[in-house]
């Protein structure tokens, strides 16, 4: 069985592909402190006297495309 496992692993350059599939570490949108609840956002906005920016998508913006 392990021979089969190894063969499959070798057919693909595992490390290179796994790295290619990882998101870049320096994505600008990740530096923004996103809340996940509009009520939480509203409370913070009232407290901090700031407006709210809401990013609404079909499929979560932080966990989709």
């Amino acid at each position, binding site marked *: *069985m*392990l021979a*089969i*496992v*190894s063969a*499959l*692993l070798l*057919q*693909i350059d*595992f490390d290179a*592909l*796994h790295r*290619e*599939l*990882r*998101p870049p570490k320096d*994505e*600008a*949108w*990740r*530096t*923004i*402190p*996103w*809340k*996940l*609840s*509009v*009520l*939480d*956002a*509203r*409370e*913070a*906005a*009232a407290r*901090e*006297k*700031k*407006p*709210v*920016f*809401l*990013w*609404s*998508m*079909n*499929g*979560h*913006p*932080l*966990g*989709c*495309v």
Partner: protein
Amino acid sequence: MFADAEIVGLLRAKFVTVAVDEWYQHRQKDAEGEFYRKVAHQGPRNKPNETTQGLYAFTADGTLVGYTNHRSADRVKPLLKKALEAAADVEAPAVERGKADARFERTLPEGAAVVDVTSKVLGGYGEPKTAWEKAYQTSLGRDHLWIRRDEVLALEKGGMPESLARRMVRFHFIDNTRGEPPMWAADEVKELSLKLEGGRLAGKVRLETASGDRGFEAAVAGFVEAKDGKLARFDVVAKGQFRGEGRYTQNAPEGRFPFAVGFALADPGDAASKVPPQGARDLRDYLR
């Protein structure tokens, strides 16, 4: 829009920022849903059975300042600047939260593990005609995989639970690089063999719709470790040939194209890791 440093700077310093999958908030019958609809229905997407997706700027009392569904900086910047002018000295009475609508609560089960999932089309596209097309062609699909505590314990004992293998292939071996994808129904899993031996995961999978218009055949390989009831490593890739597209993921490459899915432990400090899996909209089916 996030390529524009001024927009990122404004959002970080001058706004409270929130991101939602509107499938939930649009439907929830609780304070969260009511407040969301109060804001969204002031905009142009105000019909109950249609999407409300877009970018909204509003003041703390729920008054909509502006809306756009465009992502370009020249559309978003004016929206932000208008919101900053409007937000000064707005009084917002407290909102009674009450009971959350349990039908839409998605909390990570106790002791469960979260894994980042990304996907990518590795080839097969023609030359992009627009910058937008290029962005889609090179994009990473993203999601999270939830692994139940009992499945983590099974991995620790050295076995690959059938339930976890099925969840991975049905809900995460999907092309979500261009939008919301169709998942695989249980009977569309035609072949599934995933074995864990000595910390090495390997196998193959074949998924296909009844009509044959969509399919994915892939080899799977990776490294899985669990210790003391916790998942320590889940570095896995699936690579193979995909074909077809979904209603919201159109413009896939023609015919069969190389496609890969990657898995890695999520960073618990990352807000994005709290986002439930796309497939968790049907939580019972997802976690079964």
